Each structure stands twice: as structure tokens, then as C-alpha cells.
């Protein structure tokens, strides 16, 4: 064989092998976390292992639409995970445990199902003390209906209520423990011994609710609501978010059953502007529902995503659909 032929063959073989080998090698050296819509598999991998104190370097890419990434109960900005592009983040965990990571950009009806776990192993300096949620310690059934027996006939004004409250001794009910454990209706009942009219009582109740709420809480709660809840529950809390139709459609199928009507009702997102449900719900019940989700509906569980403080902020914001808090 002529020398030129040999060299040519070597070049061709080398070029072809490189064209195959180099991409495969480099690809195998780049472990990526793939984001896909839940219907197509969600996060892949969906369990990531890490060690306490060791930086965890992640490279994320989306295989379909724009997703987001954040780790629950960690103070971090959520990351945008764009299709076909790679975003990087380094996380360090102080405590061992199972952390939930989740998608933070609305990517479809099943967006909330896009979650994964980071298993952080190792020992921590102090063991975490875990306390039961308030609704558990109060033995409240968050699946039971909680409709108020009496409803305010007009929107309540915390400002008027504040004026009225000055004339009353509300120490027993105007405190955090009472606020968290009781519904506005239960607070209203506590005022039955006073000589106030119904509307006035509701005004006082709303002022109690307002005084257990700070502007920062409301601002935080609003932001959390917009990012996580509005898509189903609606911008204005009326249960008419962009995905409410899809969720209700899933419930229509249950119309065929004997209790069809009841089941399909249960599928639409809750309407926070409806006094019947809100006024009869205590912050503890609302916290429980947010923590655990379910209730025979598509409500996700947020316990591993939000911190306790974040949930109280959200709860505070939810009541603003009932009571006209001052800015």
C-alpha cells in the first residue's frame, strides 16, 4: 500500500473515532439534572445524594419548556432552567436530612408534582427538634368541613374595628395563640357577650386579625401566593386560576359516580373570597391544609417546601381576601 493511502486511512479512522469518542466522553463527564414536565418524567435524576458541609455542584438543563429550580426550606433565589441550556448552582447543607427540590416555574397542570429529593448524609452538631404542627396538637380535623354558622353581611373594616376595640378588653382573644388556634367565626362568638352589632363584631374580629399580621408578612405572603398558588387559586383568590379549568376537567370525569357532584366540586381550587369557608377556618387549619395538602383534591403538600414562617405569612395573606387590611 502506498504511503499516502496509509496516511489517508489513518486520518479517516482517527477523525471518525474522535468524532464518536470525544462527544461521548465529554457527555459522560457532564452529569446533568434534566428537568422535564411531570407528565414526561419530571426531574431526572430525582434523588441526589450529598454530604453535610460538602458543596454540591449541580448542572441543570430542561428537556422541554422553561422550568425553575429551588430547594425547599432553604434561603435561595430560584434558578431558571432553560431548554437546551445549562444552569449551574452550588449548594451546601449544614444539616443532614432529606431536602425537597422543586420546579418554580409554572410548566403545566402537574407542575407541583415536579419534585425531587436531595439526601444529605452526615452528622450535624445539634439534632433538630421537630414539633408537631399546630392542627395536630389541637386535634383539628383538616379534612372536615369548616363552615361558619354566621357570616358577615358586609365587608368588615379593620379600621372601624380598631376604634371599637379600644373600648373593649380583648386580652383573652387578641393574642397570637388565640389567633392561630381559632377561626374568625370563633372570635366572633367570643364577642357575643358584648353589646356590639353584628357588623361591629365582625369589624372587631377583622381588626384582631389585622393586629396579628404585619405588613412584611403580607408582602411575603403575597409573593409566595403569586409564585406558588395563584396559578390554581387565581390572582384574586377566587379559585379561578389559569389551571383551574384543567383541574376541574379532571374532576368532571368523576361526575359518573354516585357522588359525582360532590367529587367534582372538590376538584376546583378553593375560593378564598368565599366567606363561608374562610371565616370558619382557623390559621391552624389553613396551615395544616398547606402543609399536608390532599383533602381529596389536587392540592399539593407544601410541608417540605415552605418554612413554618412562610406558611404563617401565606395564611395571613389568605385572610386579606376577606378582610380589607390597610396597606
Amino acid at each position, binding site marked *: *500500500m*502506498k504511503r499516502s*493511502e496509509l496516511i489517508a*486511512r489513518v486520518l*479517516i479512522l482517527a*477523525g471518525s473515532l474522535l*468524532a464518536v469518542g470525544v462527544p*461521548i466522553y465529554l457527555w459522560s463527564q457532564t452529569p446533568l439534572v434534566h428537568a422535564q414536565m411531570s407528565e414526561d418524567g419530571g426531574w431526572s435524576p430525582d434523588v441526589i445524594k450529598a454530604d453535610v458541609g460538602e458543596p454540591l455542584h449541580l448542572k441543570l*438543563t430542561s428537556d422541554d419548556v422553561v422550568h425553575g429550580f429551588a430547594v425547599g426550606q432553604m434561603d435561595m433565589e430560584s434558578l431558571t432552567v432553560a431548554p*437546551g441550556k445549562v444552569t449551574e448552582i452550588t449548594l451546601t447543607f449544614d444539616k443532614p436530612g432529606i431536602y425537597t427540590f422543586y420546579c418554580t416555574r409554572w410548566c403545566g397542570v402537574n407542575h407541583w408534582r415536579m419534585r425531587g429529593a436531595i439526601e444529605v448524609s452526615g452528622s450535624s452538631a445539634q439534632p433538630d427538634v421537630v414539633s408537631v404542627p399546630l392542627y395536630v396538637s389541637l386535634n383539628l380535623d383538616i379534612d372536615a368541613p369548616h363552615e361558619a354558622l354566621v357570616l358577615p353581611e358586609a365587608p368588615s373594616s379593620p379600621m372601624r374595628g380598631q376604634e371599637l376595640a379600644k373600648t373593649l378588653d380583648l386580652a383573652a382573644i387578641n393574642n397570637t395563640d388565640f389567633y392561630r388556634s381559632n377561626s374568625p367565626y370563633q372570635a366572633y362568638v367570643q364577642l357575643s357577650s358584648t353589646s356590639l352589632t353584628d357588623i361591629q363584631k365582625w369589624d372587631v374580629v377583622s381588626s384582631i386579625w389585622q393586629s396579628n399580621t404585619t405588613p412584611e408578612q403580607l408582602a411575603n405572603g403575597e409573593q409566595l401566593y403569586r409564585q406558588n398558588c395563584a396559578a390554581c387559586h387565581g390572582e384574586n383568590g377566587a379559585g379561578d386560576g389559569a389551571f383551574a379549568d384543567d383541574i376541574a376537567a379532571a374532576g368532571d370525569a368523576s361526575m359518573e359516580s354516585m357522588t359525582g357532584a360532590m367529587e367534582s366540586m372538590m376538584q376546583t381550587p378553593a375560593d378564598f373570597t368565599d366567606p363561608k369557608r374562610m371565616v370558619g377556618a382557623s390559621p391552624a387549619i389553613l396551615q395544616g391544609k398547606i402543609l399536608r395538602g390532599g383533602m381529596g383534591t389536587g392540592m399539593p403538600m407544601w410541608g417540605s417546601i415552605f418554612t413554618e414562617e412562610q406558611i404563617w405569612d401565606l395564611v395571613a395573606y389568605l385572610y386579606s381576601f376577606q378582610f380589607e387590611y390597610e396597606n
Partner: protein
Amino acid sequence: MLMSRVELTRSRWIKSLLINRYPQLAVFIMMLVGYIFAILAGLIGTPVGSHNFSIVFVWIAWWAILILIAVPFFGRGWCAVCPIPLPGEWLQRGAVLAPPDKKPKWLNLRVPKMFRNIWLQNISFLLLALFSSVLLTTPNITGIVLAAMLFAAIGLSTVFERRAFCRYLCPVGGFIGLYSQTSPIELRIKDKQTCAACKDKPCYHGSAAGYGCPWDVFPGGLTKNTYCGLCMECIRTCPYDNIAVNMRPFSADLAKPSTRMDEAFKAFIMLGSAMIYAGVLLGPWGILKDAAYNVGTGAWFIYALVFLTIIFGILPGFFLLSLLNKTNAAPFKQRFTSLSTALIPLGLMFWVAFSLSFVLTNASYIFAALSDPLGLGWNVFGTANIAWQPMLISVLAPAQTLALVGGLIWSARTAQKAAHEVRVSSLPVIVYCFVTTSIMLWLLL
């Protein structure tokens, strides 16, 4: 010689560049490596088409170069550098450069007569066309199809003689060949008598200097570009220096219309698919896109049926109507095939106009795909984060209009010449071209 022709190979440096195997090999290696890389990118890269090298560099960059430059100006110029037949051909020849002393023994069967036409190419193009919505947007499908073509070509080379894949199966080769008749470049013999006197015909059978025509063409009889792949072997083997590459007027080949049904139907396939794509891929009708994309659903079957009906029924059917004038005319088949050559420049311009749209819209993806071909977060040339933006959009509509109107004029002239040969009026065919051009204009603008 007829018409004005400029013999490019009269220039010594052009000639030596074309004959020398090393520059050609260098291009071959680049193309093959790029092709293999495209397969890999499709199979292991990001599934997001706009960020994957395989989609961007095959269906946007390569397609743009093919339909806007290579075919109109160089005819089968792409075939001259295409990597698909190369591994098979090297195996078949037993060498990568000049012919070896000992030739390997492959089957070297002649392709059966039944398949020695472009019907298989018509079918393979249609197969890709019906799945195009998925193929053109899904990297791993593109990777699989590219790999399949490569392996098919290798397989065919070990069984049949010459470039069986290229000549009889390649979906792209079908229309490149048809449209190459319009190009201003040709490979032709210089003097017929020299060929008549030549005993061995090494241009067809090969010699120590080179291989016999891999396209199964007898260069001495070449009168049209359709099947010559510009591989330059015959220029290397001709002992009398009787073969030249010429520059000539556009569409010189259409002065001698073909009388082949397979080519006539290729013209309809290309015309129809350009119009259907303009409507489905570029139009505002979401339901059509869904039908085209959701392969296997009822909607897709209806889409496929309509597609085939337009191409094999409606378009040729209306064309038939323009040929019904029988007085004193040539036989029907001859009328049909030679007048359908008017659809060649028309179809080419339809494809140019259609391609301009999606190429200018998507060309900016080339920057990102160049720097991060697999979507792994690389930034090889620093262009990975260049955002998408449509390019030259103000130029698009005028360019498309120019192309379509130019195509109409070109096809009308072709129709006139062809009609004259078969003794019918060219007017109905011109009206046909006018109507289809108007539909295409409406779809695109």
C-alpha cells in the same frame, strides 16, 4: 459548441484542483467527521432541537446552503462532497485515494432494472416528508435517520456496484438531480468523435488512474446534469482529456426535456410538498401543525392522505387538464413529461422562497449550536449565549416575492419552449404555474 459556454477546466489551477485527490479527500474527511458528529449530537445531545447541533446544522445550516446556493448554482455540487456514500465506497474500492493494485471482491451486483429509476427516491423523500414535523425538530430521530442512511449506503455498496444508494435511494438526491438541470455548471465531453473512437471507455469502467463512474453514467453520453454527481473520476481516467467542466446559462438542460414519468412525478412531489409545508409549517393553522406532528394519530393519517392526494392526485390532475388539446400534438406521455419540466424551475423557486423563511428566522440558532453543540453547557467559540433573533426580516418578503415571480417567469419560458417541441399551446401550463405561484405567495406572505 451550442450556446455560450465557458470551459472552467481550461484553467490549469481549476483543473488540477478538481483532479487532485488530496483536496477532495480533505473535504471528504471534514464532511464525514461533521456528519458523524451530527449523528452523535442527535443521539446523546439535548432533546431540545433548537440547541442541538444535529437539528441546527442539518435542517437549518446545511439545508440553507443546499437549497439556496449548492443546487441553484452548482447543481449536484453537494453530491460531490456528500459523506454518506464514502465509507461504503472506500470499502468497495479497497482504497481511499487512487485505485489499488488488488481490487477487493465484493458482489458488485447491478441494480435490478425494475429499480433503475427514481421511484424509490420519490418514495424515500415522501417518507421523510410525511414525518418531517417530527424529524426536523427531534434530535434523536434526526440522529437515527442520518445513521440509517449511512448504514444503508454502506450496505448497498457491499452488494451492488457503484453508488447504488446515491443513484437510486437517497431522498435528497432525487430532487438535487432534478433541479440540477437548472444549474449553470455542467460536466460534459468536449468532442463526440474522440469518445466514439475510444475502445476501453475507462471513464465508465475505470483504470489505474481512477474509478469508473460511480453514478453509473456513461460520460460520453451525458447531455443533462441529472445523474452526474460531479465526482471528477471521469476527468481523471479519460486518456484523451476529453471531459470538461463548463459554466453555461441557467437551465440549459431544460431545452431538452426529459420524457420520464418518474422525473415528472418528482416535480409534482417537490411542488406539492413546498406548498404543503408553507401552509402547515409556516401558516397560522395550529390544527394542521398538530396533525402533522402527532404521528400515528387519526389526524395524522388524514394529513398523510391529504398530502398524498395533493401530490399524486390534485396537482397532476389539474396539470393533465392543461394538456388535453390533442390536435396534431405529440403522444400524451411525451406531452405530460416534457411540459412538466416547466415545474422544475418553479419548484426550485418555491423551495427557495419557503426555505428563506425558516432559515432567516432560525439562523441565529447556529451561533449557540456552534459553541454548545450538545447542550452540555460548553462555550467553545464564546457564542453559546447569543439569543435567538430572526434575521433580515425586512428583506424576507421582497426576497420571497422576487423568487416566486422570478420562478414563474422562468417556468413560463420553459413551458413555452417545451410546448413548442410537443406542439401544444403553452398557455394552460402557464396558467397552472400562475395559479400555483399565487397560492404559494398567499401562503408565504
